[in-house]
C-alpha cells in the first residue's frame, strides 16, 4: 500500500511537471492567437514578444495560462489532450478506420512480431554457434556488436532501398529492420545463458560420457531459459522500435511510424504524442505479456527467482 502511494506520488509529480512545462512552451502561440482574436496582450505585438523570455510573457499575461493547455496545435500538448486524442482514436473509432490508432498499432504489431520471431530465431542460432565454436565466437561476436553501433535511422532507408531493388516490399523490410534490432540482445543473453552451467554440472555430464548434443539439450538449453526471457523482453521492445523506424523512410501510410510522420508533416503535435504513447503502451503490453510467460515457464521449471 505504501509503495502504491509512492508510485502515485511520482506519477502525480510527472503530470504536474508536464502541465507546468506546457505554460512556457505554448504561451507565445496562445498570445499570438489571442492578439488575432482582438484580446489585449502584453506586449501588444508579436515582434516584440518574439524576443522576450517566455517566463516574462507568462508573468505579464496570467489570463492566458489556462489556454496553454487547450490549443489545437500546441508545441507541447497537455496530458489530458493526449489522453482525449488516444480515447477518440482508439475506443471511439472503428478498428478498421484509417484514423484508428488500433488499426495503425496492429499494422506495426504485425511487423514487430514477424521481426521478433526472425530476430529471436537468428539470435538463438548465432548464440548456439558462438557457444560451440571458438571460430564463430571470434568472428561473429565482434560483428554483432558493431552492427548495433550503427544508428538504425541511418541504416533503415538503405535496407529498404536494397530490399526494394530485389523486389521485397510490404511487411518484410520492416520486419527485417525490427529483427536487426532484436537479434542482438538475444545473442548476448543466450550466449551467457548457454554458458551458465557451472564446471561441476559440465563435469557431471563428462562422467556420463555425454556428447555435445546431449549436453546442449539436457543441460545448456534448459539452464539458459532465465537469460532467454530477459533477452526476449529487451528484444520485443527493440523489435517494436525497429518496426516504427522502418515505417519512417518509406512514407508508409499505415502504422504507428506513419502516424508519427503524418503528425509531424501537418504540425499535429497531439497526434504525434498520442502515437508515441500508443507505441509505449504497446511495448509495455508486449513486455508484460512476455513477463507473464516467463513467470509461468520458470515456475514450472523450478527456476523462478
Amino acid at each position: 500500500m505504501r509503495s502504491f502511494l509512492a508510485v502515485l506520488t511520482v506519477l502525480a509529480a510527472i503530470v504536474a511537471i508536464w502541465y507546468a512545462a506546457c505554460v512556457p512552451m505554448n504561451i507565445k502561440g496562445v498570445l499570438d492567437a489571442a492578439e488575432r482574436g482582438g484580446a489585449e496582450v502584453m506586449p501588444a505585438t508579436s515582434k516584440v514578444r518574439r524576443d522576450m523570455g517566455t517566463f516574462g510573457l507568462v508573468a505579464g499575461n496570467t489570463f492566458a495560462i489556462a489556454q496553454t493547455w487547450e490549443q489545437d496545435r500546441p508545441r507541447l500538448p497537455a496530458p489530458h489532450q493526449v489522453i482525449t486524442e488516444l480515447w477518440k482514436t482508439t475506443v471511439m473509432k472503428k478498428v478498421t478506420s484509417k484514423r484508428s490508432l488500433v488499426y495503425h498499432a496492429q499494422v506495426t504489431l504485425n511487423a514487430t512480431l514477424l521481426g521478433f520471431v526472425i530476430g529471436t530465431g537468428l539470435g538463438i542460432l548465432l548464440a548456439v554457434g558462438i557457444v560451440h565454436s571458438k571460430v564463430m565466437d571470434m568472428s561473429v561476436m565482434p560483428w554483432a556488436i558493431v552492427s548495433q553501433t550503427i544508428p538504425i535511422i541511418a541504416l533503415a532507408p538503405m535496407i529498404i532501398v536494397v530490399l526494394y531493388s530485389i523486389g521485397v516490399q510490404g511487411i518484410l523490410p520492416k520486419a527485417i529492420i525490427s529483427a536487426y534490432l532484436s537479434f542482438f540482445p538475444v545473442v548476448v543473453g543466450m550466449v551467457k545463458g548457454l554458458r551458465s552451467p557451472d564446471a561441476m554440472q559440465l563435469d557431471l555430464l563428462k562422467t556420463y560420457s555425454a556428447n555435445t548434443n546431449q549436453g546442449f539439450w539436457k543441460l545448456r538449453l534448459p539452464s539458459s531459459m532465465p537469460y532467454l526471457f530477459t533477452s526476449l523482453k529487451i528484444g520485443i521492445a527493440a523489435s517494436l522500435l525497429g518496426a516504427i523506424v522502418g515505417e519512417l523512410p518509406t512514407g508508409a501510410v499505415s502504422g504507428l511510424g506513419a502516424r508519427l510522420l503524418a503528425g509531424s508533416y501537418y504540425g499535429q503535435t497531439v497526434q504525434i504524442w498520442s502515437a508515441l504513447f500508443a507505441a509505449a503502451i504497446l511495448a509495455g503490453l508486449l513486455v508484460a505479456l512476455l513477463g507473464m510467460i516467463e513467470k509461468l515457464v520458470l515456475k514450472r521449471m523450478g527456476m523462478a527467482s
Partner: protein
Amino acid sequence: MNTQTTTQAQAQSGAPEAVVEAKNLDLVFPTNDGPVQALKDVNLTINKGDFVSFIGPSGCGKTTFLRVMAALEHPTGGTITVNGMSPDEARKQRAYGYVFQAAGLYPWRTIAKNIKLPLEIMGYSKAEQDKRVEQVLELVELAGFGGKYPWQLSGGMQQRASIARALAFDADILLMDEPFGALDEIVRDHLNEQLLKLWARTNKTIGFVTHSIPEAVYLSTKIVVMSPRPGRITDVIESTLPRERPLDIRDSQEFIDIAHRVREGLRAGHGDDE
C-alpha cells in the same frame, strides 16, 4: 547376498583384487603464477570393496586425485589404472559414479527424472530406466519421492538423490568429493550411517574425499592422509575397525587411536612448510 559374502571373504583372505592402481603419479597445473604441483609421486592401490577416504588440508590434491581416477584431470607423469584400464576407458565402461559436493540436481526435473539423466544419456530403455530409478530410490531411502522436485527436498535428501543418480547405472566404483561437506553435523551423521549400510548392501568400492577426521575414520577401511605443496600422500592407514559400525563406535578406544594417528599424519604433513 552370497556373492557379497564371497567377495568379502576374498578381500579378507589376502587375495584382494586391485581396482585402482596409481604408480608415481604426478600432476602439474600450469597457472599464471607458474606451475603448481598438485600431485607428486603418488602411489596407491585401492582394492575391490574398499572404502577409501582421502583427507588433508585444502590444496593437498585429494580432490585432484579423485578427479584423476574419474578422468576429469589427466596426470602429467606416472601411471594410473582403473579396473586395469586407463581412466578414460573405464569411464566409457561406466566403471564409476561421481558425487559432487553440491547435489547439482536439475531444478526442472523431478527426482526420478534427475536419476534418469545418466540413464537417458547412456541409452537405457524406458522400462529399464523406471526399474532402476525404483531400485536406487529404495537404496538411498527415498522411495516415494520420485515425483517431487528438488526444491521440495531438504539438503540431505537432495544429496541422497544425487547419490542415487550416481548409483543408477550400477557402476562398481563410487567416487564422492566431500558429498556431505555442505550439510550440518546431525544430517551428516545420519547420511554417514546410511552410506555405510549402502556400501555393505552393494559392495561397491568407494573413494571418499573429506576434511573431517571423524567422518574419515568412521567410514573408511583405508584412510589416505595427504599434505599440500606439493600434493602428496603422507600416510596410508588400514582401519582395524570392523565393517559393521554403529554410530557409537566413535567412542571406542580403537576409533580414538585411529583418529589420533590421522591427526598426527596431518600435523606432520603440515609441519613441512612452516
